């Protein structure tokens, strides 16, 4: 059965590099990074992908991030649009200041107010939240639940999350180096991104398919065989190989190993170029999946994959490169992985 096409009608990305998709892609292609010491809390010497435009102010940093995203939208929101919001932790800075509140639920309420859409759906799937939200929106559109869907992904840098990941030993001593043989952990970042999806084209691209699963292996470590991640990729690809893969690529030893194993299982005969934007922007948690689709679409349109920031010596089997690579087509596979063994694969195509 042919699935109803879901078009990507518009995309926005707010990161420390800028507030347009174009600026962000230019920064990736120039191998820029945005890591600096946070000023809004004591980072204990750690570098993060901080957007200093968000510093100051008495409201939540997450509210400022969402307002910045709203003012950067390059499209108007059609009437009857359904809202899907992805975050891992939401307005966690308000809890740090003594508030006893549902931080993710409050993030949803803020998004509803700022984007003027009531009755939104919060989607939380750890670090796979962004792509899982985009997939939920895609399915709602195919089901005919709505004509348009606005997918928002966002998370801020915070003492809460930084200290939590530090306690797990997941943070890099310097900065994240995805797919590098000597990688030593992730670097946290903050960003927000938006996608306007609809079933009536034309759009800049299509969200062609998505597939999520779990590996039921361990609560903080992925199944290193990558088998379930490969299965999710197969489910999303439906037998048609991609021209490139935007990986989750956090730069932790285990995450990247599982991803590389999945890529080897899928594409051993003809390796597909692999890239992670976390070498430039850090791990933006609930934003990353939406960001990968937003920036991935622009890269697919330009038919180019950026050099891998932070890469010195690629891990064996990782088809990552220090140089930009020309793509023969505009079909991309995007991956998200999250705590609890969560896997998400999505396919997008430039039109």
């Amino acid at each position, binding site marked *: 059965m042919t699935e109803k096409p879901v078009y990507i009608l518009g995309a926005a990305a707010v990161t420390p590099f800028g507030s347009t998709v174009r600026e962000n892609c230019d920064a990736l292609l120039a191998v820029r990074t945005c890591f600096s010491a946070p000023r809004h809390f004591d980072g204990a010497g750690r570098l993060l992908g901080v957007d200093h435009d968000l510093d100051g102010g008495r409201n939540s940093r997450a509210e400022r991030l969402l307002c910045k995203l709203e003012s950067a939208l390059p499209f108007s929101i059609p009437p009857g649009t359904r809202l899907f919001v992805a975050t891992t932790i939401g307005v966690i800075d308000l809890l740090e200041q003594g508030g006893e509140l549902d931080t993710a639920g409050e993030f949803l309420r803020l998004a509803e107010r700022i984007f003027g859409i009531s009755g939104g759906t919060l989607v*939380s799937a750890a670090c796979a939240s962004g792509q899982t939200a985009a997939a939920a929106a895609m*399915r709602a559109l195919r089901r005919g639940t709505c004509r348009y869907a606005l997918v928002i992904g966002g998370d801020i840098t915070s003492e809460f999350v930084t200290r939590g990941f530090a306690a797990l030993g997941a943070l890099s001593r310097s900065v994240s180096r995805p797919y590098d043989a000597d990688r030593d952990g992730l670097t946290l970042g903050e960003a927000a991104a938006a996608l306007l999806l609809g079933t009536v084209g034309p759009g800049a691209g299509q969200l062609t398919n998505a597939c999520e699963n779990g590996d039921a292996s361990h609560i903080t470590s992925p199944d290193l065989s990558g088998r379930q991640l490969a299965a999710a990729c197969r489910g999303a690809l439906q037998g048609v190989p991609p021209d490139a893969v935007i990986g989750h690529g956090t730069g932790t030893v285990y995450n990247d190993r599982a991803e590389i194993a999945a890529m080897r299982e899928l594409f051993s005969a003809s390796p597909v170029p692999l890239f992670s934007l976390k070498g430039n922007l850090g791990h933006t948690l609930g934003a990353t999946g939406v960001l990968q689709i937003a920036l991935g679409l622009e890269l697919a349109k330009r038919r180019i994959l950026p050099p891998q920031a932070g890469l010195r010596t690629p891990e064996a089997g990782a088809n990552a490169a220090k140089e930009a690579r020309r793509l023969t087509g505009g079909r991309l596979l995007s991956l998200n992985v999250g*705590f*609890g063994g969560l896997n998400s694969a999505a396919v997008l195509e430039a039109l």
Partner: protein
Amino acid sequence: MKIRGMARLAENNEFFTLFRRGRFGPFADLNTARHILSAVPGMPEGDLNDFGRGGVTVRRVMLTALLAAWDANGTLSREAGVLGWNGDGCTAENLAFWQDYVSCGREAARGGLFVATLPTIPYCEAAIALKCLGPVAYYRTAPSGTELQTLLDASPRGQYLCGEVTVSGVCMMLADTALDGTPLPDRPTLREIFAAWEEQL
């Protein structure tokens, strides 16, 4: 969508199942409940070796999921997904992590408490215990059975263990979206959906 099984846990550690009319407990604690429930004939084999790894919410969800699968009479698929819906989210876990960190002079945080700050964690632990390889996610929507029905109807065809956690209890439902069945009653919580069906059966 067909509902295969449903179970709920009350505040006093007493468990109820919908179709098989099971009633277990009240138990003095969840560890006792785990041992007694594991020995019930026909109970699905769950890997509860890591039962003590998570907090109380994780344990409550694991046991209620096990009972929902038991209520479905052995029809739980290996490909089933596990979804959380509304309820309390993880506010209590967020506060526990942060207050512990602050009380330690903001010097060191506990990784175990940090992991629990994701609302999906109890559902992931249930998926691990029951070896379910489908998707795991947490959704917050308007409190309405119709919204939950819409969410499940739009999901890929298959089985979903769908749960709701509140301070007063846990409710888990095993739904099969590949099969036809009665629509969910338009009640605001899973607990009230359970009660509505209990009255009808």
